[in-house]
């Protein structure tokens, strides 16, 4: 953390903006940059899937049924990671599957983050009945195991991409809400909030333009860390067969499909498993190094 010490010492007059200092701290953390790059790589891969996937993810042929990866006997470089039980190219399905995983992870965190931030600000700043209502709702939702809650909701709504997003948002906002409420309670008692009231700013303006800028970095960091968790939960739902439905390629369903052949053809389940592992690991480590660089309590 040499960069942190340096930035805490002298505040350079010309380039003293907080964001630029944070960026410098972030870039000096090699490990963090590496995993952020891997994470960004997954995103690029997902966006470019139609162009970079070697085969149609849904085109199968029983001639290639359970064909092993290229480096094993019987494999071919045309299908580098082998094929599944329907003879579909595993690499292409992983590339397409990244779309679903990342899309769900990012969209859920964005929507839930927005809802949670708003409710957390309201609860923390206004207090009273609003706080009681929101906080009790949070307490109740936190008492449910996340997966069971999602399975229940999916059971009611039926499978489908939109329904997964709705089900996960229904729970995920709680995480942001709790964080924002706690941070707001802390910031609300600062003198500059009192000063803002003395200046005649409306409660809405105080919440969004005085308090929010002071807590937004914490929200961003937690949101990044949550993307990984959401991806895992989506994969779990798909694995259980109540998430993304075939033929849409999703990592969770791929693992489920392959588990019957685990002993005979380990690659069918293992490669999507490794993909989930790498994506979630890189998302988490990227989030952590973002926190190290942007958390005001660590930098200022």
């Amino acid at each position, binding site marked *: 953390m040499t960069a942190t010490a340096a930035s805490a010492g002298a*505040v350079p007059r010309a380039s003293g903006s907080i964001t630029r200092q944070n960026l410098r701290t972030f870039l000096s953390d090699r490990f963090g940059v590496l995993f952020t790059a891997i994470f960004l790589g997954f995103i690029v891969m997902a966006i470019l899937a139609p162009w970079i996937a070697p085969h149609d993810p849904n085109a199968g042929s029983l001639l290639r049924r359970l064909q092993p990866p290229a480096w094993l006997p019987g494999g071919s470089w045309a299908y580098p990671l082998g094929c599944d039980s329907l003879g579909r190219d595993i690499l292409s399905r992983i590339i397409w599957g990244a779309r679903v995983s990342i899309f769900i992870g990012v969209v859920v965190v964005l929507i839930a983050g927005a809802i949670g931030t708003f409710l957390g600000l309201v609860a923390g700043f206004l207090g009273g009945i609003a706080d009681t209502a929101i906080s009790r709702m949070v307490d109740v939702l936190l008492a449910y195991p996340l997966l069971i809650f999602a399975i229940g909701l999916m059971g009611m709504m039926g499978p489908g991409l939109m329904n997964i997003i709705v089900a996960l948002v229904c729970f995920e906002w709680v995480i942001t809400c709790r964080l924002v409420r706690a941070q707001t309670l802390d910031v609300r008692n600062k003198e500059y909030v009192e000063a803002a*009231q003395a200046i005649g700013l409306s409660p809405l303006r105080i919440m969004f333009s005085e308090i929010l800028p002071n807590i937004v970095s914490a929200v961003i960091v937690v949101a990044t860390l949550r993307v990984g968790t959401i991806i895992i939960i989506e994969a779990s739902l798909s694995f259980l067969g109540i998430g993304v439905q075939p033929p849409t390629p999703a990592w969770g369903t791929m693992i489920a499909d392959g588990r019957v052949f685990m002993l005979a053809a380990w690659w069918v389940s293992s490669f999507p498993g490794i993909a989930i592992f790498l994506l979630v690991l890189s998302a988490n480590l990227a989030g952590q190094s973002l926190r190290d660089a942007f958390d005001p309590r660590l930098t200022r």
Partner: protein
Amino acid sequence: MSAGRDGPILSVRGLRTEFPTTRGRVVAVDGIDLDVMPAECLGVVGESGSGKSVTFLSMLGMVRLPGRVSGEVRFDGRDLLGMGARELRELRGRELAITFQDAQMALNPSLSIGSQILETLAAHGPAGSRRLFGRDPGQVGRAIEMLTRVGIPAAAERLRDYPHQFSGGMRQRAMIAIALVCNPRLLIADEPTSALDVTVQAQVLDLIAKMRRELGMSVVLIAHDLGVVAEHCDRIAVMYAGQIVELGPAEAVIEAPRHPYTQGLIASAPWLSDLTRELRPMPGSVPNLIDMPEGCHFAPRCPFRSDACLRPVAMRTAADGRQVRCIRPEAVA
């Protein structure tokens, strides 16, 4: 709309602020009567905890629940305590401004100085410019002008700076700029110099005096340092345990204090003009606001106390207009 040119701009009658606590009721402000005249500078002095700040926060409707405020506060003829929250908010910042003791705490660390000034302008500007997001280019010019007027060099560039890039004195100046950007008619400066170095203190006080002349506004200068108030104010109100104990022209109160507390305060403060004088600390300490003595609040520390002091003491006005809360005849002489 105006209550007349000659009437007080701020008129306070029987202001009382109390906070219920688990150990009993704390009466932080106990019956304040006060007038602030147009273009006047009124000094308010007293020890920490004497209720100086709470008095003025109460007037602005900024006492948090469970605190309760009662009495009557008229600003330019309008009743502040009976006003709706929205109406009061319109008034704060535009006609009634307040600056706080520690600018480091009172400026938002995550917002640039410029956006903090612009926010005030946006909140009080004409209806069209009251946007929650975005800013009006005309108001940027006004912000730069204001920063220049409070003595911040290269104001246009420093608009983008954050509070931590300003020095202590500069922060205080920036906070004054924020308070004055809407040309208020009354500025309440809450201990503007307490957090500053002595050399910077004088600059900030001069700045407030200069802005008062230029804008023709009234100033309430809250301080615990008699010297600060003596030099810059027309009148002085001395507060003790939630009450005003003495009120009169600044010079008269300093030269010939009549209330024993004011006398003690002056005797215990060092004056550069008379270094040979012996300092006499006041015995005792400020009473606990929960179980306040029923009579004169200062009685337990007063060298002149008598049995008569155990009954409530009212403010009395002397022939020369000075007001003292003391039963001794020589106090009102």
